[in-house]
């Protein structure tokens, strides 16, 4: 997988709101990128993944909220 293919897939997952999948994909695929990401590309992915982690975490909190309210 090339760096551009990797970035395009990540971006598609993010755009589709599939943040947890984006995180899982980044973990599974990051070692298969040939050639490896440049430092700039890696920084870009760090940015995307920080957003993915935050959004996935917020989504988990939101889905847990009704349970807390009725507990």
């Amino acid at each position: 997988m090339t760096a551009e293919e990797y970035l395009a897939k990540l971006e598609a997952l993010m755009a589709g709101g599939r943040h947890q999948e984006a995180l899982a994909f980044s973990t599974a695929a990051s070692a298969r990128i040939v050639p490896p990401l440049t430092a700039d590309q890696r920084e870009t992915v760090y940015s995307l993944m920080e957003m993915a982690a935050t959004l996935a975490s917020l989504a988990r909190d939101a889905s847990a909220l009704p349970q807390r309210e009725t507990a």
Partner: protein
Amino acid sequence: MTPDYPPLSAPLQCLEEAERLFWGSAAERAALFRLSAEGGTAAILRVDAAVVAGLAALGLPRGPVRGVAVESAPGMLAGWKDPACTVHLSAEALSAYLQDGLPDAIARIWVHESLHARQPYAPTYHSEYAAAAGYEEGMVEGLARSVLRDHAGMSALAGTFEYYVTVYLALGDVLDVAVERLWRSLWQAPAGQVRARFPRVLADLTGWPDGRPVDSVTLGRLQAVADRLFDTRRGRWWPDPMELARTWRLAIR
């Protein structure tokens, strides 16, 4: 005799010795980051104490957090602060920066995540972040770079969220406002309220050449442009500073 660290600004010169050593000595930081990447608890605590003290001295204190965790996070996640107020840093990312010869990029991540942790997240955090993460991320990343570069003389910082930072830099240029003043004013809002604070900050910091305040119609146009430029989907865009400046200029005509 107390060692002097020439790159440090006056507030950082006033820190306790161990904290001043962290901020003033690249060798000390690199050694502590190496130990932190290996999970050394004492080193992590020392770095964190120095970061907390330095930010407080610079008028940007971190709020209460549950802790800072340096943990294995395979994949491409360098650091993040969760809504339950734990700061997470990836041991793999720390190691990658050390291998790249960029130890101070770790200081940037540490400060970046600590700036997110200035206050508990506002209830509006989810909606703001999902729509326009750039308000928060651009401000926090820009401020982190500014703190490390201008107050501690660190230069090899790398950087995330390049697009959003450049959006703010272009805005500062177009409005003739020092961008750090803009970032510091926005930082006073909790995460989730930065977008809401944006027009008020612009109104406070700017004005027409004849002294009149910027009118509400212009502020509304600036907010509309900002909503577009700080869109969460632009997280991986690469900035064109000239084009961004042109976009902002159109909003204030």
